[in-house]
């Protein structure tokens, strides 16, 4: 009963809003989230939950796969470091509200030390520890090698390495050109562009949240919800035929999912207007093209003109930085928008021009 409920809660259409809501709560109450009390209670409460999860044979089968062990470690590390930075930020923000300097700027923390031997010894120890850990790991978990490649056969499910499973999940909602080329390039270019776009001098050398609120929120949303969450879904919740399976669900090859995806143009011309698809390609996709241009071109301008925080951004960043930043945000948000449209309306493509290999 409880397991069935959790299986339902894990479905992307439910778990994605839950994850987004939890992210909102974490940001809103970051001081509570970043307290030691919260971390202690979270750890204590998570132990029986983990035991409950691990006791299930279907869940254990997936989590113990050699491929999936590092993702378990990754999740623990992500949770810890998210809490750790928020913990440090909460302390500093509280201090700065009282008019004190951040912890890192206190006189006893401003003392300078030599990089040799202090830093180099630490690095040497880290190298040795990592090597020892990897050697033990390589002995304990055998590399999951398979038979030689066969161009007429693919394993089922065919999964990318775990660090690419976020991309593979994105590919479920986008054309390969978008999710395989355009979005990864924009992710990398956007990450490189961060220091040029974000010229806020605050936060250099100390942890904080308040001073860099929007930078932290937009980065953490992309990282935690649009990357780590998608990796979790791709690793643990996608089974044969890339069908969704709950954490306690048996990976039944013949699970039937009623799915029928249609394009926006089919929605409008056939369902909405009832007159069939026009012959001309551009006329056929005109609504999608208008929507896309409006989304990419109109929203950044509208935010800058009509909203108070947008106007502040525009003044702080200047027009070039502002439009670069907003373009990246708009492209990033196209992923959750596309996912929600798929789940709610079985929407396949906003613009569907397979004749030109162009689908959005």
């Amino acid at each position, binding site marked *: 009963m409880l397991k069935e409920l959790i299986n339902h809660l894990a479905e992307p259409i439910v778990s994605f809003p839950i994850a987004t809501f939890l992210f909102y709560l974490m940001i809103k109450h970051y001081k509570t989230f970043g307290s030691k009390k919260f971390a202690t209670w979270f750890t204590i409460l998570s132990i029986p939950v983990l035991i409950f999860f691990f006791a299930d044979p279907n869940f254990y089968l997936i989590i113990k796969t050699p491929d999936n062990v590092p993702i378990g470690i990754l999740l623990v590390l992500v949770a810890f470091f998210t809490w750790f930075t928020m913990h440090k930020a909460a302390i500093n923000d509280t201090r700065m509200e009282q008019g004190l300097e951040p912890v890192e700027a206190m006189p006893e923390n401003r003392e300078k030390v030599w990089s040799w031997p202090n830093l180099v010894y630490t690095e040497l120890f880290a190298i040795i520890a990592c090597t020892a850990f990897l050697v033990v790991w390589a002995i304990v978990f055998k590399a999951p090698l398979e038979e030689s490649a066969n161009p007429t056969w693919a394993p089922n499910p065919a999964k990318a390495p775990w660090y690419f499973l976020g991309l593979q999940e994105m590919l479920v909602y986008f054309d390969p050109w978008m999710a395989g080329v355009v979005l990864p390039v924009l992710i990398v270019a956007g990450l490189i562009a961060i220091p040029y776009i974000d010229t806020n001098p605050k936060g250099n050398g100390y942890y904080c949240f308040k001073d860099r609120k929007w930078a932290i929120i937009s980065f953490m949303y992309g990282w935690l919800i649009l990357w780590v969450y998608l990796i979790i879904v791709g690793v643990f919740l996608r089974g044969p*035929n890339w069908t969704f399976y709950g954490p306690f669900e048996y990976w039944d090859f*013949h699970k039937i999912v009623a799915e029928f995806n249609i394009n926006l143009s089919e929605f409008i011309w056939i369902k909405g207007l009832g007159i069939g698809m026009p012959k001309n390609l551009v006329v056929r996709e005109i609504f999608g093209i208008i929507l896309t241009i409006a989304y990419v071109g109109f929203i950044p301008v509208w935010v800058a003109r009509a909203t108070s925080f947008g106007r502040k951004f525009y003044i702080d960043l200047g027009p070039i930085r502002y439009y670069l930043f907003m373009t990246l945000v708009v492209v990033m948000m196209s992923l959750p928008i596309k996912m929600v449209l798929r789940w709610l309306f079985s929407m396949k493509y906003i613009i569907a021009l397979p004749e030109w290999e162009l689908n959005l």
Partner: protein
Amino acid sequence: MSDTKLALNRREFFSYVTVGWVMFSAACAGLGAMAFRFSYPNVNFDPEMEFLAGLPGDFPSGVDERFKATFGVWMVKQEGKLIALSNICTHLGCIPNWLPAELKFKCPCHGSGYYMSGINFEGPTPRPLERFKIGLQPDGKIKVDKTKVYRWEKGEWENPDSFLNV
């Protein structure tokens, strides 16, 4: 000054330089050619691009998988037509599976689904599976030519070479 014997006069120097440059360029070109050759495999395991698929009577209605493992082709007989369907997903090039119980092709990579006819209906795939050229030889055997593909969205499935009336 005048009795200084030059080991090499100007004309000889240039002829040596020319020889040297020609040999250097030839060596570079040879190395480049070898590097280019190296980027191609010595043995090719790709399926053959043309094959004979037996007689039209060999195929029952439905999807025939006997040429999937060897040539990457599904022979589909439906409504009096026999077609040779590519087994490469039009989304990102994975190899879908034929699910006889569900009567559909389903891709294991991103969940694209196709009807028996090859028309896409679920998942992210933007267009149907591709058909290969199919025809009869004078001896009555079916010949499938994978070098010629027919795409539905371009209206090429109307082409008489893209199916066989049986």
